[in-house]
């Protein structure tokens, strides 16, 4: 549904997209993950016909975004970083206006506005001016506006930026519903959790190009497999516990002394877990926590970009 080949876009001297490649199949949520300034928003603006690429091929729903922009526009929806809705008008008036601009006709536009208000949980407040809406309600109205026609491709550019967790969950729910209805979604985010929650496939983007692509699980496995974490109860036991783990698992554990935590990569997590738990109990070393965990997307991201600071 989305094809980008060697797309370049410069703003003055800075290259926002620098050989950007992307291939998104139909009917999935595809995550574009990267820090501020990585080129995510530029990529979305090029795909949504708002920005002309300097070079490269860009197709959305089978049409070229430069030469067939109006064909593309009949098949896409865009939810940008700010809710692009008229503050003075009511939610219903906003949706009717968008429906008319899609040339649905007055009657169909009105009916569609009603359906969408219902579906996005705004039926009660549909007549009120948007100015009185909460941040989450505006977001949902914005989503509804990009769903006036069921678009083949929906671009969501950091759709939950600035929302509290409850509202974020509501927006996520709405997005899942849309995908269930057959829409292909390209989601940009700097929240790793968001990509993990929603996206089947993720491309990590840095400095205007894709540096890694895969499912969240595949990306996580790229920096090694599972880890065993042990938190000892008494700081005095730390060194003895490290020696024990090193001897039993033949690995080199890392230690966070303030947290009293020892972490080590393991090949066979279940065996390692039972073996170490047993050994620690034998030595009378009290444990606050012992668990096997997969690396977080945060760690994957830091590993891939070579950055030292976490994102979100």
């Amino acid at each position: 549904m989305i094809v980008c080949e060697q797309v370049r876009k410069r703003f003055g001297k800075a290259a926002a997209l620098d050989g950007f490649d992307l291939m998104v199949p139909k009917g999935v949520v595809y995550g574009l993950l990267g820090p501020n300034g990585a080129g995510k928003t530029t990529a979305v603006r090029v795909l949504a016909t708002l920005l002309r690429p300097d070079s490269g091929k860009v197709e959305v729903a089978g049409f070229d975004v430069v030469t067939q922009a109006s064909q593309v526009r009949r098949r896409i929806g865009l939810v940008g970083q700010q809710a692009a809705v008229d503050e003075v008008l009511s939610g219903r008036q906003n949706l009717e206006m968008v429906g008319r601009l899609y040339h649905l006709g007055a009657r169909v536009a009105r009916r569609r506005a009603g359906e969408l208000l219902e579906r996005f949980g705004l039926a009660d407040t549909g007549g009120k001016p948007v100015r009185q809406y909460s941040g989450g309600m505006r977001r949902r109205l914005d989503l509804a506006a990009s769903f006036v026609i069921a678009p083949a491709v929906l671009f969501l550019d950091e759709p939950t930026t600035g929302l509290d967790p409850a509202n974020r969950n509501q927006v996520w729910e709405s997005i899942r519903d849309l995908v269930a209805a057959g829409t292909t979604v390209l989601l940009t985010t700097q929240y790793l959790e968001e990509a993990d929650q929603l996206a089947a496939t993720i491309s990590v983007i840095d400095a205007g190009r894709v540096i890694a692509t895969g499912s969240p699980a595949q990306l996580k496995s790229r920096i090694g497999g599972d880890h065993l974490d042990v938190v000892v109860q008494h700081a005095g036991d730390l060194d003895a516990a490290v020696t024990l783990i090193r001897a039993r698992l033949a690995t080199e554990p890392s230690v966070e002394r303030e947290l009293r935590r020892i972490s080590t990569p393991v090949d066979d997590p279940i065996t390692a877990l039972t073996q170490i738990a047993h050994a620690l109990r034998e030595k009378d070393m009290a444990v606050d926590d012992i668990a096997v965990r997969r690396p977080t997307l945060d760690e994957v991201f830091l590993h891939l970009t070579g950055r030292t600071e976490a994102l979100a």
Partner: protein
Amino acid sequence: MTIAAPTLRWAVADAITLTRRDLAHWARQPGVIIANTLLFPIMIVLMFGYLLGGAMTVPGGGSYREFLLPGMFAMTMVFGIGATMVAISADAARGITDRFRTLPMAPSAVVAGRAIADMLTAVVTLAVLIGCGLLVGWHPHGPLGDTLAAVGLLLLLRFAFVWVGVYLGLVCFANPEAVTAVRTVEFPIGFLGNPFVATATMPAWLGTIAAWNPLSSTTSAIRALFGNPTGGDHSWIAQHSVLMATLWPLALIAVFLPLSVRRYRHLS
């Protein structure tokens, strides 16, 4: 759902849809719009007409209030630029313009809808101001044809400044300071002209600059057409005020309409 191909019919329909959006703003917040467009000229009329007007004499004779009112009409038309600019830049800054640009609507509709809505506002504003003028003792004394011609010239002036406003709004939307700056410059433009005092009373060089202000040409022209005191300016431009009140706005439109459309197409 199927969507018809874009045609001229859609260009008109889309412009009407966006005009209706602005009319809905009127319906939802009439107070704000009245305050923005009418309060200022009415206040000026009261201030200059009654508070300061006693000390004013019009060169060539005639009532100061009859001299002042046409100036207020023209100035209000020019000051409409602020409303146009704020509306255009607010939409662009809030991402609403981007939403329109991703819809399969006629690209011309965004600026055309703005222009139609602003012209409708101008007609209503002018009607109210003329009503206020009649209340404070201003009258058109010329034939009906001349009076209508004067109203036409006023709306032409507003139309020209719609396009100046659209262009400046599209250029400045990314920084709010620029919008404020333009709105501040309105005032010297209004005062560096002949709406309040005749250019004949100014130092010669300043009078010449003021006389060449597009606002002055329209003011002089409608004073003549309404049969109101003209302030005794015998310069070439004042003597050809109806011609200049037509040429100035047409020149502004010729420059700023294409610039606005071009700017809209190349928004990024």
